[in-house]
């Protein structure tokens, strides 16, 4: 590999309902933009749905994942990780190969990746990585925690009730009573899943019961929240560590009752790179007051949660009352929302290059933070008893 280039490991796939979407994000725009820049050697790392790690250069081409790739992987050796004041990859065998990774670009959605798990691993490895750190990632993955944290800092959220599976099984009357006080129709959601998986809009008790059963099929914690009348949904991608740069406010013009997995990822055209922009309005045609509120709450939410690198904030707007609510935060927007960034004047190459620069800056800052200190406490432990 060329020594002048930084070696970037792009990690994707994983034990998540959004496994396949992660493969798309990794390739479009991340890997293709990193390669197009000519400044990086890209090492693709693919994690299977059962958690095995593989890496081979052919994985840099998304075509690898279109066929029966599971059959090909059976013949491959799993890649090993070494934490040696940085991250090294080892391909074991007679002709063992070791590659040092300069920076990691996580491209994982959902559980065991975007939820902070991968970030924890990378912190332990002491390697720079792109995007939000463990804390923001873990909070943002929990829709209830997100609401609790940002509303405590004055960011408006829609009224909601949350409970665990055992809460529901053991104290159903209490929770039904709490839910009945919300303004119907309601949304029922598993708390941790992304891409609208397992979400249902319910109009009556029977639908509520069924939707809660579905939510608990996917999660141990469920959220029931009010739906917004005269709804306008918008989303705002944001980039930065301390200085924030906003992309355009985007309005998904969804055909279904809410912006579901299908609208986001499946119904889009090929050029959209996996994320549907066919039904998006960029920038959203909303009045100036609403634009200002969205930007203000977006930046505040980003800071309160401690987001860094990139994130996308989703909003619900009541077009009559002009109330703006933050709905949820996505710490790895599907395909980085590069279609939106492009409209905001940031090309795919600029986007990934900037995110890698931000990763190095945060790493440098953290290296200068003192995490250990000298003490003589161990010398005092287990000494002779003093009368």
């Amino acid at each position, binding site marked *: 590999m060329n020594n002048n280039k930084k070696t970037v490991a792009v990690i994707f796939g994983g034990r998540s309902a959004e496994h396949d979407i992660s493969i798309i994000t990794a390739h479009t725009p991340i890997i293709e933009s990193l390669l197009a820049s000519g400044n990086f050697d890209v090492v693709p790392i693919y994690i299977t749905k059962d958690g095995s790690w593989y890496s081979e250069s052919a994985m840099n081409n998304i075509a690898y994942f279109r066929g029966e790739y599971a059959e090909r992987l059976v013949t491959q050796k799993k890649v090993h990780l070494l934490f040696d004041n940085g991250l090294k990859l080892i391909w074991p065998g007679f002709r063992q190969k070791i590659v040092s990774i300069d920076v990691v670009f996580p491209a994982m959605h959902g559980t065991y990746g975007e939820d902070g798990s991968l970030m924890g691993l990378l912190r332990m490895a002491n390697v720079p990585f792109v995007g939000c750190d463990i804390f923001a990632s873990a909070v943002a993955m929990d829709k209830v925690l997100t609401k609790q944290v940002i509303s405590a800092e004055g960011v408006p959220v829609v009224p909601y009730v949350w409970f665990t599976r055992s809460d529901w099984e053991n104290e159903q009357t209490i929770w039904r009573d709490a839910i009945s006080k919300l303004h119907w129709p309601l949304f029922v959601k598993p708390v941790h899943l992304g891409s609208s998986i*397992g979400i249902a809009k319910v109009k009556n008790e029977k*639908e509520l019961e*069924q*939707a809660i*059963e579905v939510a608990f099929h996917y999660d141990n914690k469920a959220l029931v929240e009010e739906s917004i009348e005269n709804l306008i949904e918008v989303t705002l991608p944001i980039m930065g560590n301390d200085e924030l740069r906003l992309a355009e406010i985007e309005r998904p013009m969804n055909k279904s009752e809410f912006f579901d997995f*299908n609208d986001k990822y499946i119904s889009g055209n090929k050029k959209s790179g996996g994320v549907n922009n066919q039904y998006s309005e960029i920038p959203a045609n909303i009045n100036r007051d609403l634009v200002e509120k969205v930007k203000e709450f977006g930046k505040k939410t980003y800071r309160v949660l401690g987001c860094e690198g990139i994130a996308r904030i989703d909003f619900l707007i009541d077009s009559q009352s002009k109330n703006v609510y933050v709905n949820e935060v996505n710490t790895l927007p599907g395909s980085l929302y590069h279609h939106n960034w492009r409209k905001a004047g940031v090309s795919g190459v600029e986007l990934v290059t900037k995110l890698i620069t931000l990763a190095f800056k945060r790493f440098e800052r953290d290296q200068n933070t003192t995490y250990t200190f000298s003490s003589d406490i161990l010398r005092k432990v287990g000494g002779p008893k003093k009368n």
Partner: protein
Amino acid sequence: MKSIVNNLAVEYEDHGSGSVMLFLHGWKDTLHTFDGLSEVFSRTHRVIALDLPGFGKSELPKSSWGLDEYVEIVWAFSEKLGISVDVIVGHSFGGRIAIKGLSQGQLRAHKVVLIASAGIAQTHTARSLFFSLVAKIGKWSTFIPPLCFWRKTLRKKLYALTGSDYMHAGRLKETFLRVVREDLSEQARKISIPALLLWGAEDTETPVADGKKFAELIHNSNLKIFSDAGHFVHQEKTTEVIAAIKEFIQS
């Protein structure tokens, strides 16, 4: 919307009111294959269509399934919804489920509509014997160089020639093999409720000969063949198919 049935998330649509029509789609298809039909029948009936596990928005079975597991999930789904089915409409693989379920009394209905139903095993035709022989020779000969380099391509070509869904079955390959192995001639013979059999004359997946065989096997049946239509006759001749089903239901 979704319902949890036997610990699997099953997507379904439930429109209209009145006596229940349950729609079962074909292999690698979804409940939306019946959109043209359900739009019309939901004006007079309660129309329920589900994505069978592994297809559409329903979850993939956690292990390889056979036909019995699909019958079981359709039964469990009906129980969960608390419905008493008046008419079952099954297309292709959905027809298999209907035949097996009705014959063993696990699924109940007053009438059944089988559209290009699968279920007649092709094991004894000269064509399938020929392809079976080619497959066996091919399997062993392609271990030898240089044929081994083209093994995958040759395999794909063979399956394409046979018109098999096997290569496209993905994670359901094992399930596909288990399902297609089962010949339902004996089960079809046990069906005693009125049956309407609808076939496209140009069907190459489940040829008209299968429809004629089912018509012989199912005592109380009526076969209608639509010219210039193939395996998806309900989509190709929607108006005519609706008219035929209406007449059948009202008779």
